[in-house]
Protein backbone atom coordinates (compact mmCIF):
# COMPACT_ATOMS: atom_id res chain seq x y z
CA UNK A 1 0.00 0.00 0.00
CA UNK A 2 1.42 3.39 -0.93
CA UNK A 3 2.86 5.11 2.13
CA UNK A 4 1.77 8.31 0.41
CA UNK A 5 -1.79 7.64 1.35
CA UNK A 6 -1.18 7.13 5.04
CA UNK A 7 1.30 10.02 5.17
CA UNK A 8 -1.26 12.49 3.87
CA UNK A 9 -3.20 14.68 6.26
CA UNK A 10 -6.93 15.36 6.54
CA UNK A 11 -7.06 18.27 4.09
CA UNK A 12 -5.05 16.39 1.49
CA UNK A 13 -7.06 13.15 1.86
CA UNK A 14 -10.34 15.07 1.66
CA UNK A 15 -9.13 16.69 -1.58
CA UNK A 16 -8.14 13.33 -3.09
CA UNK A 17 -11.46 11.81 -2.01
CA UNK A 18 -13.48 14.60 -3.60
CA UNK A 19 -11.32 14.30 -6.74
CA UNK A 20 -12.17 10.56 -6.66
CA UNK A 21 -8.42 9.79 -6.81
CA UNK A 22 -8.97 7.44 -3.92
CA UNK A 23 -12.06 5.90 -2.34
CA UNK A 24 -13.04 5.94 1.31
CA UNK A 25 -12.88 2.14 1.29
CA UNK A 26 -9.30 2.16 -0.05
CA UNK A 27 -8.33 4.60 2.67
CA UNK A 28 -10.03 2.57 5.39
CA UNK A 29 -8.19 -0.53 4.20
CA UNK A 30 -4.84 1.23 3.88
CA UNK A 31 -5.00 2.64 7.40
CA UNK A 32 -6.48 -0.62 8.68
CA UNK A 33 -3.43 -2.51 7.45
CA UNK A 34 -1.11 0.04 8.99
CA UNK A 35 -2.94 -0.25 12.33
CA UNK A 36 -2.58 -4.04 12.24
CA UNK A 37 1.12 -3.73 11.42
CA UNK A 38 1.61 -1.41 14.38
CA UNK A 39 -0.59 -3.27 16.87
CA UNK A 40 2.41 -3.42 19.25
CA UNK A 41 2.03 0.33 19.86
CA UNK A 42 -1.09 -0.51 21.88
CA UNK A 43 -2.89 2.51 20.45
CA UNK A 44 -6.21 0.82 19.67
CA UNK A 45 -8.63 -0.82 22.11
CA UNK A 46 -11.38 -1.72 19.63
CA UNK A 47 -11.66 -2.18 15.88
CA UNK A 48 -14.46 -3.50 13.70
CA UNK A 49 -13.36 -3.94 10.09
CA UNK A 50 -16.87 -4.67 8.83
CA UNK A 51 -18.43 -1.65 10.51
CA UNK A 52 -15.60 0.60 9.30
CA UNK A 53 -15.96 -0.60 5.71
CA UNK A 54 -19.72 -0.17 5.91
CA UNK A 55 -19.19 3.48 6.87
CA UNK A 56 -16.59 3.84 4.09
CA UNK A 57 -19.02 2.42 1.52
CA UNK A 58 -21.67 4.90 2.67
CA UNK A 59 -19.14 7.74 2.35
CA UNK A 60 -18.21 6.58 -1.16
CA UNK A 61 -21.89 6.56 -2.09
CA UNK A 62 -22.27 10.14 -0.86
CA UNK A 63 -19.12 11.12 -2.79
CA UNK A 64 -20.48 9.47 -5.92
CA UNK A 65 -23.68 11.46 -5.42
CA UNK A 66 -21.61 14.64 -5.48
CA UNK A 67 -21.83 15.35 -1.75
CA UNK A 68 -18.99 17.76 -0.97
CA UNK A 69 -18.97 17.58 2.85
CA UNK A 70 -15.43 18.63 3.82
CA UNK A 71 -14.59 15.46 5.76
CA UNK A 72 -16.47 12.93 3.64
CA UNK A 73 -14.58 9.63 3.67
CA UNK A 74 -11.76 10.80 5.95
CA UNK A 75 -10.78 8.03 8.39
CA UNK A 76 -10.47 8.94 12.07
CA UNK A 77 -10.78 7.23 15.46
CA UNK A 78 -12.09 8.22 18.87
CA UNK A 79 -10.51 8.22 22.29
CA UNK A 80 -12.29 5.42 24.17
CA UNK A 81 -13.77 7.98 26.56
CA UNK A 82 -16.43 8.88 23.96
CA UNK A 83 -19.38 6.45 23.99
CA UNK A 84 -20.18 4.80 20.67
CA UNK A 85 -23.05 2.58 19.55
CA UNK A 86 -20.93 0.56 17.15
CA UNK A 87 -17.87 -0.10 19.29
CA UNK A 88 -17.62 -1.07 22.96
CA UNK A 89 -16.64 1.80 25.27
CA UNK A 90 -14.30 1.04 28.18
CA UNK A 91 -12.87 4.43 29.22
CA UNK A 92 -9.70 2.39 29.71
CA UNK A 93 -11.29 0.73 32.73
CA UNK A 94 -12.09 -2.85 33.69
CA UNK A 95 -15.25 -1.32 35.14
CA UNK A 96 -16.63 -0.89 31.61
CA UNK A 97 -15.15 -3.96 29.94
CA UNK A 98 -17.37 -4.75 26.95
CA UNK A 99 -19.80 -1.92 27.74
CA UNK A 100 -22.16 -1.22 24.82
CA UNK A 101 -23.55 2.30 24.81
CA UNK A 102 -27.07 2.63 23.36
CA UNK A 103 -26.14 6.03 21.91
CA UNK A 104 -23.26 7.93 20.28
CA UNK A 105 -21.52 10.88 21.93
CA UNK A 106 -22.50 14.18 20.27
CA UNK A 107 -18.91 14.65 19.05
CA UNK A 108 -18.94 11.14 17.53
CA UNK A 109 -22.33 11.73 15.92
CA UNK A 110 -21.29 15.06 14.40
CA UNK A 111 -18.09 13.72 12.89
CA UNK A 112 -20.06 10.79 11.46
CA UNK A 113 -22.58 13.20 9.94
CA UNK A 114 -19.65 15.15 8.45
CA UNK A 115 -18.71 11.92 6.67
CA UNK A 116 -15.77 10.74 8.77
CA UNK A 117 -15.14 6.99 8.73
CA UNK A 118 -14.37 5.51 12.14
CA UNK A 119 -11.39 3.13 12.39
CA UNK A 120 -12.07 2.25 16.04
CA UNK A 121 -11.49 3.30 19.64
CA UNK A 122 -8.19 4.54 21.05
CA UNK A 123 -6.45 3.58 24.26
CA UNK A 124 -6.33 6.09 27.12
CA UNK A 125 -5.70 6.33 30.85
CA UNK A 126 -8.50 4.88 32.93
CA UNK A 127 -11.31 7.46 33.01
CA UNK A 128 -8.77 9.89 31.49
CA UNK A 129 -6.80 10.02 34.74
CA UNK A 130 -3.11 10.05 34.01
CA UNK A 131 -0.34 11.68 32.02
CA UNK A 132 1.49 8.64 30.63
CA UNK A 133 -1.30 6.29 29.49
CA UNK A 134 0.07 3.71 31.92
CA UNK A 135 -3.20 3.78 33.89
CA UNK A 136 -5.13 1.98 31.17
CA UNK A 137 -6.55 -1.36 32.30
CA UNK A 138 -5.75 -2.63 28.81
CA UNK A 139 -2.03 -2.01 28.78
CA UNK A 140 0.24 0.93 28.04
CA UNK A 141 0.66 2.80 24.76
CA UNK A 142 4.16 3.22 23.34
CA UNK A 143 5.62 6.44 22.05
CA UNK A 144 6.30 5.98 18.31
CA UNK A 145 9.43 8.13 18.64
CA UNK A 146 10.86 5.72 21.18
CA UNK A 147 8.89 2.64 22.08
CA UNK A 148 10.56 2.52 25.43
CA UNK A 149 8.88 5.78 26.38
CA UNK A 150 5.37 6.84 27.29
CA UNK A 151 3.20 8.72 24.76
CA UNK A 152 1.84 11.00 27.46
CA UNK A 153 -1.74 10.96 28.65
CA UNK A 154 -4.50 10.66 29.08
CA UNK A 155 -5.11 10.74 25.30
CA UNK A 156 -2.00 8.60 24.68
CA UNK A 157 -3.56 6.31 22.10
CA UNK A 158 -4.71 9.32 20.09
CA UNK A 159 -1.27 10.96 20.09
CA UNK A 160 0.60 7.76 19.27
CA UNK A 161 -1.80 6.82 16.47
CA UNK A 162 -1.54 10.25 14.83
CA UNK A 163 2.26 10.34 15.18
CA UNK A 164 2.64 6.81 13.79
CA UNK A 165 0.43 7.62 10.79
CA UNK A 166 -2.18 5.05 11.86
CA UNK A 167 -4.74 7.72 10.97
CA UNK A 168 -4.62 11.37 9.92
CA UNK A 169 -6.52 12.71 12.94
CA UNK A 170 -8.37 11.53 16.04
CA UNK A 171 -10.41 12.89 18.92
CA UNK A 172 -9.17 13.31 22.46
CA UNK A 173 -10.25 14.96 25.68
CA UNK A 174 -8.40 17.40 27.88
CA UNK A 175 -9.21 17.90 31.57
CA UNK A 176 -5.84 19.07 32.87
CA UNK A 177 -3.68 18.70 29.75
CA UNK A 178 -4.72 15.33 28.34
CA UNK A 179 -4.61 16.56 24.72
CA UNK A 180 -1.77 19.07 24.89
CA UNK A 181 0.73 16.94 26.83
CA UNK A 182 0.52 13.74 24.74
CA UNK A 183 0.49 15.86 21.56
CA UNK A 184 3.71 17.41 22.81
CA UNK A 185 5.27 14.04 23.75
CA UNK A 186 4.40 12.55 20.35
CA UNK A 187 5.17 15.58 18.17
CA UNK A 188 1.66 16.14 16.81
CA UNK A 189 -0.66 19.16 16.77
CA UNK A 190 -3.45 19.17 19.33
CA UNK A 191 -6.12 21.64 20.35
CA UNK A 192 -8.34 21.82 23.41
CA UNK A 193 -11.01 24.45 22.75
CA UNK A 194 -12.71 26.77 25.22
CA UNK A 195 -14.81 24.96 27.82
CA UNK A 196 -18.30 24.68 26.31
CA UNK A 197 -17.26 24.69 22.63
CA UNK A 198 -17.60 20.90 22.23
CA UNK A 199 -20.50 19.08 23.80
CA UNK A 200 -19.66 16.84 26.75
CA UNK A 201 -22.72 14.67 26.04
CA UNK A 202 -21.41 11.14 25.55
CA UNK A 203 -18.00 11.79 27.10
CA UNK A 204 -17.54 9.51 30.11
CA UNK A 205 -17.26 12.21 32.76
CA UNK A 206 -14.05 12.71 34.75
CA UNK A 207 -14.27 16.31 36.03
CA UNK A 208 -17.36 17.99 34.64
CA UNK A 209 -16.23 21.60 35.05
CA UNK A 210 -12.91 20.88 33.30
CA UNK A 211 -13.53 18.14 30.70
CA UNK A 212 -13.38 19.36 27.12
CA UNK A 213 -13.21 17.44 23.85
CA UNK A 214 -10.62 18.29 21.26
CA UNK A 215 -8.61 16.84 18.42
CA UNK A 216 -5.09 15.88 17.39
CA UNK A 217 -3.75 15.83 13.84
CA UNK A 218 -0.50 16.53 12.11
CA UNK A 219 -1.27 20.17 11.31
CA UNK A 220 -3.24 23.12 12.64
CA UNK A 221 -5.23 23.10 9.42
CA UNK A 222 -6.34 19.49 9.94
CA UNK A 223 -7.27 20.28 13.56
CA UNK A 224 -9.34 23.22 12.33
CA UNK A 225 -11.25 21.04 9.87
CA UNK A 226 -12.23 18.47 12.51
CA UNK A 227 -12.94 21.03 15.21
CA UNK A 228 -15.37 22.86 12.91
CA UNK A 229 -17.33 19.63 12.43
CA UNK A 230 -17.33 18.38 16.03
CA UNK A 231 -17.95 21.64 17.91
CA UNK A 232 -21.04 23.79 18.41
CA UNK A 233 -24.03 24.16 20.69
CA UNK A 234 -25.71 20.99 21.96
CA UNK A 235 -29.01 21.18 23.88
CA UNK A 236 -28.11 17.94 25.70
CA UNK A 237 -25.25 19.65 27.57
CA UNK A 238 -26.36 22.44 29.92
CA UNK A 239 -22.81 23.84 29.91
CA UNK A 240 -22.58 23.94 26.11
CA UNK A 241 -21.89 27.47 24.83
CA UNK A 242 -24.75 28.95 22.77
CA UNK A 243 -22.92 30.28 19.72
CA UNK A 244 -23.39 30.01 15.94
CA UNK A 245 -21.40 27.25 14.17
CA UNK A 246 -17.77 28.25 13.58
CA UNK A 247 -15.59 27.67 10.52
CA UNK A 248 -12.18 27.41 12.18
CA UNK A 249 -10.38 26.64 8.90
CA UNK A 250 -11.71 29.94 7.57
CA UNK A 251 -10.69 31.77 10.75
CA UNK A 252 -7.27 30.15 10.52
CA UNK A 253 -6.74 31.46 6.98
CA UNK A 254 -8.14 34.94 7.56
CA UNK A 255 -5.20 37.35 7.34
CA UNK A 256 -4.52 39.69 10.28
CA UNK A 257 -5.13 43.34 9.60
CA UNK A 258 -1.95 45.10 8.51
CA UNK A 259 -0.13 41.80 8.06
CA UNK A 260 2.47 42.06 5.31
CA UNK A 261 3.61 39.26 3.03
CA UNK A 262 6.06 37.08 4.96
CA UNK A 263 4.84 38.69 8.19
CA UNK A 264 1.46 36.99 8.72
CA UNK A 265 1.70 37.56 12.50
CA UNK A 266 2.46 41.28 12.21
CA UNK A 267 1.15 43.00 15.33
CA UNK A 268 0.39 39.79 17.21
CA UNK A 269 1.45 40.16 20.85
CA UNK A 270 2.52 36.88 22.44
CA UNK A 271 2.79 36.91 26.22
CA UNK A 272 5.43 34.81 27.96
CA UNK A 273 4.52 34.15 31.60
CA UNK A 274 7.76 34.20 33.61
CA UNK A 275 6.39 31.33 35.68
CA UNK A 276 6.38 29.14 32.54
CA UNK A 277 10.16 29.43 32.21
CA UNK A 278 11.51 28.37 35.62
CA UNK A 279 15.12 27.41 36.18
CA UNK A 280 13.96 23.82 36.62
CA UNK A 281 12.68 23.69 33.03
CA UNK A 282 14.60 21.01 31.10
CA UNK A 283 17.18 22.73 28.88
CA UNK A 284 15.98 20.55 25.97
CA UNK A 285 12.46 21.84 26.32
CA UNK A 286 13.40 25.45 27.00
CA UNK A 287 15.68 25.49 23.98
CA UNK A 288 13.09 24.11 21.57
CA UNK A 289 10.39 26.43 22.87
CA UNK A 290 12.61 29.50 22.52
CA UNK A 291 13.52 28.44 18.97
CA UNK A 292 9.83 28.23 18.08
CA UNK A 293 9.21 31.63 19.68
CA UNK A 294 12.04 33.06 17.55
CA UNK A 295 10.25 31.72 14.45
CA UNK A 296 7.04 33.40 15.58
CA UNK A 297 8.97 36.66 15.94
CA UNK A 298 10.32 36.28 12.40
CA UNK A 299 6.69 36.03 11.29
CA UNK A 300 5.97 39.41 12.82
CA UNK A 301 4.86 38.55 16.34
CA UNK A 302 6.17 40.55 19.27
CA UNK A 303 6.97 38.86 22.60
CA UNK A 304 5.77 40.45 25.84
CA UNK A 305 6.66 39.47 29.39
CA UNK A 306 3.59 38.68 31.47
CA UNK A 307 2.95 36.91 34.75
CA UNK A 308 0.66 34.16 35.97
CA UNK A 309 1.60 34.39 39.64
CA UNK A 310 -0.57 31.44 40.74
CA UNK A 311 0.82 28.93 38.28
CA UNK A 312 2.21 26.70 41.04
CA UNK A 313 -1.00 26.92 43.04
CA UNK A 314 -2.87 25.53 40.04
CA UNK A 315 -1.53 22.09 40.99
CA UNK A 316 -3.26 21.79 44.40
CA UNK A 317 -6.30 23.68 43.07
CA UNK A 318 -6.69 21.28 40.15
CA UNK A 319 -5.94 18.17 42.19
CA UNK A 320 -8.69 19.12 44.64
CA UNK A 321 -11.38 20.17 42.16
CA UNK A 322 -10.87 17.38 39.61
CA UNK A 323 -10.86 14.48 42.12
CA UNK A 324 -13.82 16.01 43.99
CA UNK A 325 -15.92 16.05 40.84
CA UNK A 326 -14.54 12.65 39.79
CA UNK A 327 -15.40 11.02 43.13
CA UNK A 328 -19.03 11.98 42.49
CA UNK A 329 -19.05 11.27 38.74
CA UNK A 330 -17.69 7.76 39.30
CA UNK A 331 -20.31 6.84 41.94
CA UNK A 332 -22.59 5.55 39.16
CA UNK A 333 -20.15 2.66 38.68
CA UNK A 334 -21.70 0.54 41.42
CA UNK A 335 -22.39 -2.79 39.71
CA UNK A 336 -26.15 -2.21 39.52
CA UNK A 337 -27.12 -0.81 36.10
CA UNK A 338 -24.21 -1.49 33.76
CA UNK A 339 -20.63 -2.68 33.55
CA UNK A 340 -18.61 -4.78 35.95
CA UNK A 341 -19.91 -6.43 39.12
CA UNK A 342 -17.71 -8.46 41.48
CA UNK A 343 -18.26 -12.20 41.14
CA UNK A 344 -18.68 -12.85 44.86
CA UNK A 345 -20.07 -10.73 47.68
CA UNK A 346 -21.86 -11.16 50.99
CA UNK A 347 -24.46 -8.40 50.80
CA UNK A 348 -25.26 -5.08 49.13
CA UNK A 349 -22.53 -3.07 50.87
CA UNK A 350 -20.01 -5.81 50.14
CA UNK A 351 -21.12 -5.87 46.48
CA UNK A 352 -20.50 -2.14 46.19
CA UNK A 353 -17.10 -2.28 47.87
CA UNK A 354 -15.78 -5.33 46.02
CA UNK A 355 -17.14 -4.20 42.66
CA UNK A 356 -15.49 -0.81 42.94
CA UNK A 357 -12.29 -2.23 44.47
CA UNK A 358 -11.89 -4.75 41.64
CA UNK A 359 -13.25 -2.56 38.83
CA UNK A 360 -11.15 0.58 39.40
CA UNK A 361 -7.40 0.90 38.99
CA UNK A 362 -4.99 2.36 41.54
CA UNK A 363 -4.91 5.96 40.25
CA UNK A 364 -8.70 6.12 39.96
CA UNK A 365 -9.09 4.86 43.52
CA UNK A 366 -6.52 7.38 44.70
CA UNK A 367 -8.45 10.27 43.14
CA UNK A 368 -11.79 8.98 44.41
CA UNK A 369 -10.26 8.92 47.89
CA UNK A 370 -8.86 12.45 47.60
CA UNK A 371 -12.12 13.76 46.16
CA UNK A 372 -14.27 12.06 48.78
CA UNK A 373 -12.03 13.40 51.51
CA UNK A 374 -12.01 17.05 50.40
CA UNK A 375 -15.81 17.04 50.10
CA UNK A 376 -16.42 15.27 53.39
CA UNK A 377 -17.93 16.93 56.43
CA UNK A 378 -15.77 19.63 57.95
CA UNK A 379 -13.28 19.87 55.07
CA UNK A 380 -15.38 21.34 52.24
CA UNK A 381 -14.65 25.00 52.96
CA UNK A 382 -10.95 24.52 53.60
CA UNK A 383 -10.36 22.53 50.43
CA UNK A 384 -13.06 22.52 47.72
CA UNK A 385 -14.41 26.03 48.33
CA UNK A 386 -10.93 27.50 48.78
CA UNK A 387 -9.81 25.80 45.55
CA UNK A 388 -12.79 27.21 43.60
CA UNK A 389 -11.98 30.71 44.87
CA UNK A 390 -8.36 30.35 43.84
CA UNK A 391 -9.63 29.08 40.52
CA UNK A 392 -11.32 32.42 39.92
CA UNK A 393 -8.13 34.25 40.91
CA UNK A 394 -6.24 32.14 38.37
CA UNK A 395 -8.82 32.95 35.69
CA UNK A 396 -8.55 36.65 36.59
CA UNK A 397 -4.75 36.47 36.28
CA UNK A 398 -5.23 35.35 32.66
CA UNK A 399 -7.57 38.25 31.94
CA UNK A 400 -4.94 40.62 33.31
CA UNK A 401 -2.41 39.06 30.91
CA UNK A 402 -4.75 39.40 27.95
CA UNK A 403 -4.84 43.13 28.60
CA UNK A 404 -1.24 43.12 27.40
CA UNK A 405 -1.13 40.29 24.85
CA UNK A 406 -3.26 38.40 22.32
CA UNK A 407 -1.90 34.93 22.98
CA UNK A 408 0.14 33.31 25.74
CA UNK A 409 2.98 30.94 24.92
CA UNK A 410 5.23 28.57 26.83
CA UNK A 411 6.17 24.92 27.15
CA UNK A 412 3.48 22.24 27.39
CA UNK A 413 5.43 20.13 29.86
CA UNK A 414 8.61 20.60 31.88
CA UNK A 415 10.24 17.58 30.19
CA UNK A 416 10.05 15.32 27.15
CA UNK A 417 8.44 11.87 27.28
CA UNK A 418 9.84 9.75 30.08
CA UNK A 419 10.67 6.04 30.11
CA UNK A 420 7.78 3.61 30.22
CA UNK A 421 7.32 1.30 33.18
CA UNK A 422 9.13 3.25 35.88
CA UNK A 423 7.23 3.20 39.13
CA UNK A 424 6.80 6.96 39.40
CA UNK A 425 5.39 8.62 42.48
CA UNK A 426 1.93 9.88 41.47
CA UNK A 427 2.83 13.24 43.00
CA UNK A 428 5.68 13.52 40.50
CA UNK A 429 3.17 13.20 37.65
CA UNK A 430 0.84 15.76 39.25
CA UNK A 431 3.68 18.28 39.44
CA UNK A 432 4.55 17.67 35.76
CA UNK A 433 1.10 19.04 34.77
CA UNK A 434 2.04 22.51 35.99
CA UNK A 435 1.96 24.29 32.60
CA UNK A 436 -1.31 22.80 31.30
CA UNK A 437 -3.40 23.12 34.48
CA UNK A 438 -3.83 26.92 34.58
CA UNK A 439 -5.62 27.14 31.20
CA UNK A 440 -7.73 24.10 32.11
CA UNK A 441 -8.87 25.69 35.38
CA UNK A 442 -9.74 28.92 33.58
CA UNK A 443 -11.48 27.00 30.75
CA UNK A 444 -9.32 28.70 28.11
CA UNK A 445 -8.44 27.20 24.71
CA UNK A 446 -4.95 25.75 24.39
CA UNK A 447 -2.82 24.09 21.75
CA UNK A 448 0.32 22.04 21.55
CA UNK A 449 2.29 22.76 18.38
CA UNK A 450 5.40 20.76 17.42
CA UNK A 451 8.44 22.90 18.23
CA UNK A 452 11.32 20.69 17.25
CA UNK A 453 13.21 18.04 19.14
CA UNK A 454 15.29 17.60 22.24
CA UNK A 455 19.00 17.69 21.52
CA UNK A 456 20.56 16.24 24.68
CA UNK A 457 22.07 12.78 24.79
CA UNK A 458 19.51 11.27 27.12
CA UNK A 459 16.40 12.31 25.26
CA UNK A 460 17.83 13.07 21.83
CA UNK A 461 15.27 13.23 19.04
CA UNK A 462 12.21 13.32 21.26
CA UNK A 463 9.56 15.87 20.29
CA UNK A 464 8.88 19.06 22.22
CA UNK A 465 5.62 20.97 22.08
CA UNK A 466 4.98 24.70 22.19
CA UNK A 467 1.87 25.58 24.16
CA UNK A 468 -0.31 28.40 22.88
CA UNK A 469 -3.17 29.68 25.07
CA UNK A 470 -5.85 32.06 23.80
CA UNK A 471 -8.63 34.02 25.45
CA UNK A 472 -12.16 32.56 25.56
CA UNK A 473 -13.40 31.49 22.10
CA UNK A 474 -10.15 32.60 20.44
CA UNK A 475 -9.56 29.19 18.81
CA UNK A 476 -9.37 30.95 15.44
CA UNK A 477 -6.48 33.14 16.59
CA UNK A 478 -4.67 30.12 18.07
CA UNK A 479 -5.03 28.12 14.87
CA UNK A 480 -4.00 31.13 12.78
CA UNK A 481 -0.74 31.52 14.69
CA UNK A 482 -0.04 27.78 14.69
CA UNK A 483 -0.79 27.58 10.97
CA UNK A 484 1.56 30.48 10.24
CA UNK A 485 4.30 28.73 12.21
CA UNK A 486 3.71 25.48 10.34
CA UNK A 487 3.82 27.26 6.97
CA UNK A 488 7.30 28.50 7.93
CA UNK A 489 8.68 25.37 9.65
CA UNK A 490 8.55 21.60 9.11
CA UNK A 491 8.76 20.25 12.68
CA UNK A 492 5.16 19.07 12.44
CA UNK A 493 5.90 17.08 9.27
CA UNK A 494 8.66 14.94 10.79
CA UNK A 495 7.91 11.23 10.94
CA UNK A 496 9.13 9.08 13.84
CA UNK A 497 12.59 8.11 12.53
CA UNK A 498 12.27 4.40 11.80
CA UNK A 499 11.34 3.84 15.41
CA UNK A 500 8.43 1.77 14.17
CA UNK A 501 10.94 -0.78 12.99
CA UNK A 502 13.47 -0.54 15.79
CA UNK A 503 13.47 -2.78 18.88
CA UNK A 504 12.85 -1.25 22.29
CA UNK A 505 15.80 0.58 23.83
CA UNK A 506 17.84 -1.25 26.46
CA UNK A 507 16.48 -1.42 29.96
CA UNK A 508 12.80 -1.03 29.17
CA UNK A 509 12.26 -4.57 27.93
CA UNK A 510 10.68 -5.30 31.31
CA UNK A 511 7.99 -2.80 30.48
CA UNK A 512 7.42 -4.38 27.07
CA UNK A 513 4.89 -7.01 27.90
CA UNK A 514 3.34 -5.51 31.03
CA UNK A 515 -0.25 -4.67 30.26
CA UNK A 516 -1.99 -2.65 32.95
CA UNK A 517 1.29 -1.57 34.47
CA UNK A 518 -0.66 0.64 36.84
CA UNK A 519 -3.00 -2.03 38.16
CA UNK A 520 -1.26 -2.65 41.48
CA UNK A 521 -0.97 0.26 43.92
CA UNK A 522 2.20 1.97 42.76
CA UNK A 523 4.38 4.37 44.68
Amino acid at each position, binding site marked *: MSGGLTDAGVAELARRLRAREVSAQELAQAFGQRIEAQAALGAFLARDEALTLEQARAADARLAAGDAAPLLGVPIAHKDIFVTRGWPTTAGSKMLQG*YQSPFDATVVQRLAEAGCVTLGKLNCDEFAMGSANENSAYGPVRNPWDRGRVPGGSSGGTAAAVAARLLPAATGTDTGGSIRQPASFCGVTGIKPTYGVCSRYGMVAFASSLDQAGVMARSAEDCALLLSAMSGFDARDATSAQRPPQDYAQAMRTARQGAAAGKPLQGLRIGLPQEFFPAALAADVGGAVRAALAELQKLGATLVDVSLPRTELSIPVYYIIAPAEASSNLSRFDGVKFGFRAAEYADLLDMYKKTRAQGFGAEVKRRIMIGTYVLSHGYYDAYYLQAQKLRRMIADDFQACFERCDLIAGPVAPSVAWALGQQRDPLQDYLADIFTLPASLAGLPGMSVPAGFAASAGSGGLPVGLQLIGNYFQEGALLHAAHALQQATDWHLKEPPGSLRSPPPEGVSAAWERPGAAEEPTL
Partner: protein
Amino acid sequence: MALTPQDVGRIAHLARLELSAAEEAAMLQQIGGFFGIVERMSAVDTGGVEPLYTPLSAVQAVALRLRDDVVTEGDERAANQRSAPLVEDGLFLVPKVIE
Protein backbone atom coordinates in the same frame (compact mmCIF):
# COMPACT_ATOMS: atom_id res chain seq x y z
CA MET B 1 -3.07 18.61 58.70
CA ALA B 2 -2.06 14.97 59.07
CA LEU B 3 -4.14 12.18 57.56
CA THR B 4 -4.73 9.27 59.94
CA PRO B 5 -5.33 5.59 59.10
CA GLN B 6 -8.82 6.12 60.60
CA ASP B 7 -9.43 8.88 58.04
CA VAL B 8 -8.43 6.54 55.22
CA GLY B 9 -10.78 3.85 56.52
CA ARG B 10 -13.68 6.29 56.90
CA ILE B 11 -13.17 7.78 53.42
CA ALA B 12 -12.83 4.34 51.82
CA HIS B 13 -16.15 3.35 53.39
CA LEU B 14 -17.85 6.57 52.24
CA ALA B 15 -16.49 5.90 48.72
CA ARG B 16 -17.50 2.24 48.91
CA LEU B 17 -13.99 1.00 48.20
CA GLU B 18 -12.61 -2.16 49.79
CA LEU B 19 -8.91 -1.47 50.29
CA SER B 20 -6.27 -4.03 51.16
CA ALA B 21 -3.91 -3.23 54.04
CA ALA B 22 -1.20 -2.53 51.45
CA GLU B 23 -3.48 -0.18 49.54
CA GLU B 24 -4.49 1.65 52.71
CA ALA B 25 -0.86 2.11 53.66
CA ALA B 26 -0.02 3.39 50.16
CA MET B 27 -3.02 5.73 50.22
CA LEU B 28 -2.04 7.13 53.59
CA GLN B 29 1.46 7.85 52.35
CA GLN B 30 0.49 9.20 48.91
CA ILE B 31 -2.51 11.28 49.94
CA GLY B 32 -0.55 12.55 52.90
CA GLY B 33 2.19 13.67 50.51
CA PHE B 34 -0.37 15.34 48.30
CA PHE B 35 -1.79 17.33 51.18
CA GLY B 36 1.72 18.59 51.75
CA ILE B 37 1.42 20.73 48.61
CA VAL B 38 -2.20 21.56 49.42
CA GLU B 39 -1.16 23.44 52.53
CA ARG B 40 0.40 26.13 50.30
CA MET B 41 -3.05 26.72 48.87
CA SER B 42 -4.66 27.08 52.27
CA ALA B 43 -2.33 29.96 53.13
CA VAL B 44 -3.73 32.23 50.38
CA ASP B 45 -6.19 34.93 51.45
CA THR B 46 -9.29 34.48 49.28
CA GLY B 47 -11.49 36.85 51.27
CA GLY B 48 -14.25 38.37 49.13
CA VAL B 49 -13.45 36.14 46.15
CA GLU B 50 -16.39 34.36 44.49
CA PRO B 51 -15.80 30.67 43.73
CA LEU B 52 -15.58 29.86 40.00
CA TYR B 53 -17.88 26.85 39.67
CA THR B 54 -18.11 26.98 35.87
CA PRO B 55 -15.25 28.47 33.81
CA LEU B 56 -17.15 30.85 31.52
CA SER B 57 -18.58 32.73 34.50
CA ALA B 58 -15.11 34.25 34.82
CA VAL B 59 -16.03 36.64 32.00
CA GLN B 60 -19.82 36.42 31.55
CA ALA B 61 -23.00 35.70 33.48
CA VAL B 62 -23.83 32.03 33.01
CA ALA B 63 -27.45 31.03 33.60
CA LEU B 64 -28.98 27.56 33.52
CA ARG B 65 -30.64 26.85 30.19
CA LEU B 66 -34.10 25.28 30.57
CA ARG B 67 -35.84 22.79 28.29
CA ASP B 68 -39.55 22.74 27.53
CA ASP B 69 -41.62 20.17 29.41
CA VAL B 70 -42.14 17.65 26.60
CA VAL B 71 -41.64 13.88 26.50
CA THR B 72 -38.89 13.10 24.00
CA GLU B 73 -37.72 9.67 25.15
CA GLY B 74 -39.51 6.39 24.48
CA ASP B 75 -39.04 2.90 25.90
CA GLU B 76 -35.40 1.87 25.24
CA ARG B 77 -35.27 -0.70 28.05
CA ALA B 78 -33.80 -3.50 25.97
CA ALA B 79 -30.94 -1.34 24.65
CA ASN B 80 -30.41 0.38 28.01
CA GLN B 81 -30.11 -2.91 29.91
CA ARG B 82 -27.84 -4.59 27.36
CA SER B 83 -24.80 -4.14 29.61
CA ALA B 84 -26.58 -4.70 32.95
CA PRO B 85 -24.94 -7.23 35.31
CA LEU B 86 -28.19 -8.87 36.45
CA VAL B 87 -31.75 -8.31 35.17
CA GLU B 88 -35.04 -10.16 35.63
CA ASP B 89 -38.53 -9.13 34.49
CA GLY B 90 -36.99 -5.83 33.41
CA LEU B 91 -35.76 -5.16 36.97
CA PHE B 92 -32.12 -4.67 37.96
CA LEU B 93 -31.38 -7.27 40.63
CA VAL B 94 -29.22 -6.44 43.66
CA PRO B 95 -28.53 -8.09 47.02
CA LYS B 96 -31.51 -7.61 49.34
CA VAL B 97 -32.11 -3.96 50.19
CA ILE B 98 -32.76 -3.45 53.92
CA GLU B 99 -34.48 -0.14 54.74
